[in-house]
């Protein structure tokens, strides 16, 4: 495990470093408080920290306060190092956010024991965060396909339209429906139908640019209804959307689906539109109605095709 040692005295730092390396830690050293904060707030930075109370630029308690003021990063277990003769008030350090303190020079056995406490706290923290993330995922994702569920994809669409309105960038929307899905269920059974839904979801995900796992930016794919999927494409304008829709359609058609021992030819129909200007007088329901109409046209004109809805641009 990585651990940060922050001390402006080179000898103290080196001795601590050696002691920790002997115990199997990967040590990151910092000679002042600002460098320590920089290390701790770097993505993937150390989660354990031994911080000297008095350091140039930023002292130990101030460092604790800075780290604790950030809520967007994994918890860092901080042990403050104080001097045995010091009048420094340990309470001040703990109130500033330190988890523990040690007097210098440190006894190796005591240091190891206290770091074990840190390990326990961090492991517990990680388990809680993992459980929370799992619950958050389940609350917003479809259990069969792991795509965003209807509520979440609608919420993302609303956010994306507002973001596009602020940044004056286009956003495109596709509504996709699996052709003859009822027949697949009727002929091959619902388990086969579920397999098709999962494979369609997987191919959709591969054909878009979901470079943000939480969907804050980038494209998003959601299960809109039974066999209907809603795709939101950020920064995708009217000139690009037809080709993008064709790519999505082809991703399904180009390779047969392996279901049980059979190979099924699956296709999708797609209605799409690009919003170049959005304002509060427009409704998301109206937008989706238009895309749904385009999807209906794609179905009624033979399926396995993409049809644009009328543009919603006001100018």
């Amino acid at each position, binding site marked *: 495990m990585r651990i940060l040692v922050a001390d402006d005295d080179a000898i103290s730092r080196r*001795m601590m470093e050696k002691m920790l390396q002997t115990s199997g830690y990967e040590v990151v050293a910092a000679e002042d408080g600002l460098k320590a904060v920089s290390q701790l707030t770097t993505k993937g930075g150390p989660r354990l920290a031994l911080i000297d109370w008095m350091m140039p630029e930023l002292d130990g308690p101030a460092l604790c306060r800075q780290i604790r003021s950030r809520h967007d990063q994994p918890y860092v277990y901080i042990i403050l190092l104080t001097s045995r003769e010091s009048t420094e008030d340990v309470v001040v350090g703990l109130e500033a956010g330190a988890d523990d303190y040690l007097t*210098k020079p440190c006894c*190796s056995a005591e240091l190891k024991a206290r770091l074990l406490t840190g390990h326990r706290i961090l492991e517990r923290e990680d388990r809680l965060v993992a459980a929370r993330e799992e619950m958050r995922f389940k609350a917003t994702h479809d259990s069969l396909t792991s795509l965003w569920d209807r509520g979440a994809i609608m919420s993302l669409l609303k956010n994306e339209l507002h973001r596009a309105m602020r940044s004056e960038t286009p956003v495109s929307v596709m509504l996709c429906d699996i052709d003859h899905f009822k027949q697949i269920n009727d002929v091959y059974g619902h388990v086969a139908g579920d397999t098709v839904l999962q494979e369609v979801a997987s191919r959709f995900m591969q054909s878009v640019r979901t470079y943000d796992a939480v969907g804050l930016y980038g494209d998003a794919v959601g299960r809109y209804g039974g066999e209907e999927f809603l795709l939101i494409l950020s920064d995708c304008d009217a000139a690009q959307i037809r080709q993008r829709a064709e790519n999505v359609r082809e991703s399904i058609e180009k390779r047969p689906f392996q279901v049980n021992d059979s190979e099924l030819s699956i296709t999708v129909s797609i209605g799409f539109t690009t919003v170049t200007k959005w304002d509060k007088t427009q409704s998301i329901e109206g937008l989706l109605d238009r895309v749904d109409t385009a999807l209906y046209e794609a179905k009624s004109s033979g399926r396995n095709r993409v049809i644009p809805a009328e543009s919603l641009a006001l100018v």
Partner: protein
Amino acid sequence: MASDNSVDMDDLLERIDGDRTLLAELVEMLRKDYRMQFQAARVALSKNDSAGIQRIGHALKGAMSNLAAPLASTMARDLESCGRTGDLSSVGELLTQLEHEMGRVAAKLESLCPELV
């Protein structure tokens, strides 16, 4: 000749797990880095910079405590205390004594690192 009481060798060797290579490295750091610390302390004294004296005293105190050098550690603590209270009247004399004591500490440590002698 190094004084026998400048470093508690049992304490130090226990702390560094008997690692003489590390000890040699620490002695080299002591020789190189602390000359600069004393220069910085004298500059701070000339500027009446009590915060600077406190910071240097604190750093030296930490180093001397870690090296199990009780007298040098006490002197560094006094230096830090002068900086904290702002009474720098005895700092000049204290620096001279501390520098001398740290020289003894370095000599004592070097005696355990024959490759450095």
